[in-house]
């Protein structure tokens, strides 16, 4: 929690000696509160003041990074419970678990499939984030060679899962300069795991087997031993208890309970009795407070669903998703298909594309860059006008796409019809319905334009 100017003022000497460059301690305090000055400019600041200010400036949840040769995967550093309060910052990495008991072929296949998976949405490409390799065999050299083999096939970030510090140590020997996530330090092995984390500068999970008290104890122990990058596993797995304990941990982190000031890791597959339940748990964890999610199930459909949800949940509420401007297709349109126009505010586009989809008539939708504003807002802000529409029609060669040369304006901006006609003399400017749900009727009533 940031301190207010008054709170800071109370910590200053209140002598108004001006050495900080400000006329009064109060003026200096206001600058400090605004984050525009540094306490070191006051030579008389007490140790108490220094401590309190630096504690207040420390973010409530640490950012933890998993490093490989070419990747840096940062998670944590969240500041709120609900996304509308500010936003969620670092999308929780989705990793897929493989085990060292799997056959070489199965392992290769999974690593290849997961590693190559990517999907495009709203003009961006999304992938999964890495692998968790588990020492299921219990054997250190089997684990080490499995990790080595995964490492040779992918540079994606890794989590290493082992209970035996000897296994962990053997595997860490094989990862070169990368710094995988160590899973996990428990009450039985925390001393040795902590030493490994320090030796290899790796982030480390502390895992509780007995609730939040033990979690706090392990976290304190790890940080006391000098491990800085910690991730928490509260140990709960099922739908109800993971929601409750993740909520409590996030809440305590935000209230600056230091042992919990770290990201959370989750294993939805371990709390689920079916793949469907695992996916539902993963969805819960994306929305409610996991910062690293290790999946046991993978399929393109699961990945597409979860990556889409993560994109949605981590969207900045102040800066909604924007589309790239351009001509989008609904179905497989041809030169006779309708051409609609809208702005690059994703919700406007989705509203229209959804309704167009429902009509069953393949169509073109020209998306005009309005800096993410909706039709009416963009129009009143002067960002959706006849010039812009004409420029986009030309830039994206709309005339080559359709032979009817007619363009459907959103009904809300019917007022732009005249000007657009002047800008585009070869085009017929039609005025569509005011609201997207009217598109079905509009298409039916004007069918002859696209069928004649």
């Amino acid at each position, binding site marked *: 929690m940031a301190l207010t100017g008054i709170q800071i003022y109370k910590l200053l000497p209140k002598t108004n000696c001006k050495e900080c460059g400000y006329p009064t301690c109060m003026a200096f305090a206001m600058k400090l509160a605004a984050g525009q000055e540094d306490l070191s400019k006051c030579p008389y600041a007490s140790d108490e003041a220094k401590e309190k200010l630096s504690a207040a400036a420390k973010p409530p949840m640490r950012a933890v990074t998993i490093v490989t040769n070419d990747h840096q995967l940062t998670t944590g550093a969240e500041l709120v419970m609900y996304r509308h309060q500010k936003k969620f910052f670092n999308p929780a990495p989705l990793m897929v678990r493989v085990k060292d008991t799997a056959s070489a072929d199965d392992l290769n296949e999974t690593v290849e499939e997961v590693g190559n998976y990517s999907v495009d949405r709203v003009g961006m490409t999304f992938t999964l984030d890495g692998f968790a390799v588990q020492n299921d065999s219990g054997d250190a050299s089997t684990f080490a060679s499995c990790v080595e083999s995964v490492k040779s096939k992918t540079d994606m970030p890794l989590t290493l899962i082992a209970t035996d510090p000897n296994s962990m140590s053997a595997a860490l020997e094989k990862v070169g300069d990368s710094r995988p996530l160590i899973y996990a330090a428990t009450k039985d092995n925390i001393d040795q795991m902590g030493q490994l984390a320090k030796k290899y500068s790796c982030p480390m999970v502390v895992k509780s087997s007995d609730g939040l008290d033990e979690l706090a104890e392990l976290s304190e*122990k790890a940080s006391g031993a000098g491990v800085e990058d910690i991730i928490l596993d509260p140990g709960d797995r099922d739908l109800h208890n993971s929601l409750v304990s993740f909520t409590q941990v996030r809440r305590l982190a935000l209230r600056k309970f230091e042992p919990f000031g770290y990201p959370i890791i989750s294993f939805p597959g371990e709390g689920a009795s079916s793949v469907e339940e695992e996916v539902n748990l993963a969805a819960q964890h994306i929305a409610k407070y996991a910062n690293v999610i290790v999946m046991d199930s993978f399929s393109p459909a699961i990945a597409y669903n979860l990556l889409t949800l993560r994109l949605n949940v981590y969207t900045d509420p102040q800066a909604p998703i924007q589309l790239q401007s351009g001509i989008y297709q609904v179905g497989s349109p041809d030169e006779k298909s309708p051409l609609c126009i809208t702005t690059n505010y994703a919700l406007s586009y989705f509203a229209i594309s959804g309704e167009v989809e429902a009509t069953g008539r393949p169509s073109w939708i020209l998306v005009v860059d309005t800096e993410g504003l909706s039709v009416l807002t963009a129009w009143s802000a002067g960002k959706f006008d006849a010039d812009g529409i004409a420029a986009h029609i030309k830039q994206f060669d709309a005339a080559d796409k359709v032979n009817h040369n007619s363009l459907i304006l959103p009904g809300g901006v019917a007022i732009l019809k005249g000007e657009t006609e002047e800008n585009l003399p070869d085009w017929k400017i039609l005025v569509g319905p005011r609201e997207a749900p009217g598109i079905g009727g509009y298409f039916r009533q004007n069918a002859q334009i696209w069928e004649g």
Partner: protein
Amino acid sequence: MLDSIKFKLEVVVPEVEIPKEKWTGRVREVKIGGKGRKEVVVGGATAMPFLDFEGEIPNPPRVAVEVRDDPSGFPPGLLSSWGDDVVNDVGSWAKKAAELGAEIITLRLTSAHPEGQNTGVEEAKSAVDKVLSAVDLPLMVIGPEIADKDNEILVPIADLAEGQRIVLGNCVENNYKTIAAACIAANHIAIAKTPLDINLAKQLNVQVSDIGVPLESILMDADMGALGYGIEYAISIDERLKLAALMGDSVTAVPIINHPGPETWRQKEAKVSEGVPESWGGYDERALYWEELSATSIIHSGADVVTLCHPKAVEYIKSMIAKLMGQ
């Protein structure tokens, strides 16, 4: 002496005190059904979804299942999961839904849509009759969402089901008086629907209650888009509405209804099985998860009633809700 030295060497364990939110508000409980029909209570929470360590969650989110008197707007992939014989009769459809665990039947009168079959009052009444006689579950009836048509067909339906506390929708900003009056006259529940705007949601609750619908007979639908189609707006609006209710704002303290099922099945991911990127995965699997994740997200954000469409989504979401309730 030795003991005390040993003690000092132990790590000082910080005490974990679980902070609890001290909410003052409670979401109203709304009773749906009755008069010979099963009764379902929704709402009543004094904490955010499932956080029962700091409040009460007396009723789980309820699962409604949508049936339509003109199913043609639903994609074949969804209709085939019920069976052709079932979806061509709202009575059989409702019955099957009840067997699968529906707690409420949402009858959407799609055949009345002026752009579709444009059927009238008689057809609407007959569809309602069929559902009422096929199942003893509480009923929700939603018109084609065209103001004049909604008013025309929902009023006689309100009379038909007098006293059975069915849910009627939708009351919207410029068309709420007729439906609200019908609810008052026949003791039904009104859905107040607004387009993703917390202030409009509050305002419409005030308007609908001002003309005489008690707040105990209102459900609010602040609208939602499916996963990938703006669900983040709905997540945040539901969370804000629920937080406002718990903070003691009386007009937002009514249960929230969302329709993740029908919202999902109008989107491409749930409609199109061919000619889409391979990375979307297999159609059946993808479409079903799309509905489940849309529902899961909105349930975790504060929805008190969700309308679903796919039989398997009903099964999985009900099982999830039971577990979230700690059952």
